């Protein structure tokens, strides 16, 4: 149970009712897009046709830079699933994991690992080796989504806009000298730029660079997280996150969450509740909202994602969504965007997570391997 004071809950409930109303008024949503009430109905209908899952193991923690976030995500999802009547064990990723999984043989494993090994597909590979069903995207597609440059190329080929970019390894700067390379980058992409590790999440190592002289520092900061940097044009516009959930009749977008911060949406803004304002659904015209939802669903499909995903997009002043990156294990903490979107859609988190778990039984990737 949440420790939020009672009157705060009331506030949130009122807020939620309002939000749902607004979403309904905006009901112009494309076919694949969840309209809140329909989603709830679809959820309960789907439930009856889906296998009843009892025992779930959640993987959380790991050794990545995002261990802390992952542990919190794991606890939140475990709590919701237990509330929905499931038997849930949360396991860290360590030397005892495989023997525990082999002994427990859970019906479904939910890897809620953020960062390397959790999102790059490798842990999913191992779960497949054990012949267990799991929530979410298979290893190969995870690898593609985790690599921001690959993901951008894939969605671009699918007709989705994404900011112009370049990926550069640290070794290149040693060979060619930093300044000439950075000059070429600025010459080609202009300013402002966003520098980020090609692999990684939670905005770790990410810098918005508005002045060329700040670029070297941003590069150093980025390379501390990994050997490959992605530098992309910073698109001005509304920042939205769109969660996508697979339903029995295909992937559906949840209402877009618009993010407004009094500064960059950095680590503190993400995990320090209060510094950021969220608008769900995003303050977009109905046509643009539909386009944004469709973009997230298209990205989900193009990248071969399964179960759930969250795409981060910027909507420019023309209403065009630009794909930034996608998460195959979106954050599920108390400040994360996926649960906010689900709640704004009027979905109960326990029901939704149970549905996600149930749908993972007999996951296609395993069938393919088997």
């Amino acid at each position, binding site marked *: 149970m949440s420790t939020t004071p009672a009157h705060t809950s009331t506030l*949130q409930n*009122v807020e939620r009712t309002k939000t749902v109303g607004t979403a309904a008024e905006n009901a112009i949503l494309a076919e694949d897009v969840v309209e809140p009430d329909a989603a709830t109905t679809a959820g309960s209908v789907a439930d009856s046709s889906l296998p009843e899952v009892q025992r779930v193991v959640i993987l959380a923690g790991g*050794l990545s*830079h995002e261990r802390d976030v992952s542990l919190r995500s794991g606890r939140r999802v475990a709590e919701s699933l237990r509330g929905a009547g499931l038997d849930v064990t949360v396991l860290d990723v360590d030397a005892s994991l495989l023997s525990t999984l082999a002994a427990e043989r859970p019906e479904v494993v939910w890897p809620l690992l953020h960062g390397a090994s959790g999102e790059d597909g490798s842990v999913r590979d191992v779960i497949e080796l054990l012949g267990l069903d799991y929530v979410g995207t298979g290893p190969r597609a995870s690898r593609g989504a985790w690599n921001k440059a690959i993901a951008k190329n894939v969605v671009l080929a699918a007709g989705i806009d994404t900011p112009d970019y370049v990926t550069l390894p640290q070794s290149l700067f040693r060979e060619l000298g930093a300044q000439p390379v950075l000059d070429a980058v600025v010459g080609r992409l202009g300013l402002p730029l966003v520098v980020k590790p090609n692999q990684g999440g939670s905005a770790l190592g990410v810098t918005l660079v508005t002045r060329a002289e700040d670029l070297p520092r941003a590069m150093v900061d980025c390379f501390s997280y990994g050997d490959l940097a992605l530098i992309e044009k910073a698109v001005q516009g509304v920042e939205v996150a769109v969660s996508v959930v697979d339903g029995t009749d295909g992937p559906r977008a949840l209402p877009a969450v618009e993010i407004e911060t009094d500064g960059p949406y950095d*680590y503190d803004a993400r995990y320090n509740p209060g510094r950021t304002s969220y608008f769900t659904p995003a303050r977009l015209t109905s046509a643009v909202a539909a386009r944004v939802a469709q973009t997230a669903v298209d990205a989900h499909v193009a990248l071969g994602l399964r179960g759930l995903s969250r795409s981060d997009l910027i909507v420019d002043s023309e209403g065009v969504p630009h794909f930034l990156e996608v998460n195959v294990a979106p954050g599920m903490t108390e400040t994360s965007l996926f649960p906010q979107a689900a709640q704004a859609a009027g979905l109960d988190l326990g029901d939704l997570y149970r549905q996600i778990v149930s749908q993972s039984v007999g996951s296609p990737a395993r069938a393919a391997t088997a």
Partner: protein
Amino acid sequence: MSTTPTHPAQPAPSGGTRLDPWFGAYAERAHGMRASEIRALFAVANRPEVVSLAGGMPYLEGLPLDTIADAMQRLVATRGTTALQYGSGQGAEELRERIIDIVRLEGIDCHPDDVVVTTGSQQALDLVTRIFIDPGDVVVAEAPSYVGALGVFRSYQADIVHVPLDEHGLVPEALEETLTRLAAEGRRVKLLYTVPNFHNPAGVTMSLERRPRILEIAQRFGVLVIEDNPYGLLGFDGDPLPALRSLDDDGVLYLGSFSKTFAPGYRVGWVVAPHAVREKLVLASESAILCPSNASQLAIATYLETCDWQGQIKQFRELYRERRDAMIGALSEHLPSASWTVPDGGFYTWVKLPDGLDARSMLPRAVTARVAYVPGTAFYADGSGADHVRLSYCFPTPERIREGVRRFAGVVSAERDLVEIFGTSGAPDSDLTDVENPGPNLA
């Protein structure tokens, strides 16, 4: 019920939600409390794969746990109704009597009435600051200084002014100069905070020659000295040094702790304070926590009575000396480009990184390499310290220490490459004055 808050909370822009509806309602003193990227990185520090040279955790496997278990069992069986009951705000008398014997080892002659037991010496810091510091009052602290103390001073909105230390501890001339300057500026300096023995994080010890000089200067400027001494009995050579408090009964508040010499889990520390101050400390403590844990206090009193605690401390000293040697040896072998202090006791060495490196922006790389340290910036209130790291040798075995230093040296070398390529260090945080408090197990 109205949804318009009547409190000063800052509502989200129309139509939006803030996940914290009380954003804007927090007191000014809470404004520095932020989610920190660096703090999040420490989440991996306690995993067994990571060699943590970050934490100040004593090596509890060195304790005779069976003997302690018997003593605890007997305590609850025979005196359970006392041990589990509320106790005195000042602390259990039988423990205060024992504390007198302990501080006598450092030349302090005092009465059990002069002692206030606290929930760790961290609470003592909180109480002292609470009763002395108004927002804007100045606390003078060594540069660098214990991260947990800086956090307390900030939370009471003190202005922290650092004074340099060298291999002989706080520099008296610099102290005098600083106090003179502050007086000329008309600022109210209330406290001088010092860790004289086996400094956290600097690893240095205030020389005997400097001690009376520091006290004389503080007295002349009317500044109360906080002597924080959790490591005093953990010197590797010879007898404990005389405490500042042994030289000055009225001008020094002495803070002691069982956390490093016995076990931090009990959370028991103490203050030795002059009469009037002590009365206020007791009242402040009662308003904060009513009384320190009786169970913890009686457990420690039982331990002191039934176990060879002095022999135990001697064992710890040998153990930590061996680890210090392992660390210093490994640093000499793997990291000749850096320099460091060689502590005569305690848990830490203070390492100056090769020029141009930033200890904070290097931390993600260290996590990838499975080694953890505390960036030097944690130990300054003014954003400096990025060129230093604190390495602790108290918890890992000598073998792990050597492995950790080897990994750390690899991280430093990779970061040097990077800095060389770009001609600058990283810029990990926009607000350099943030205290990156690494959390209790790392403080």
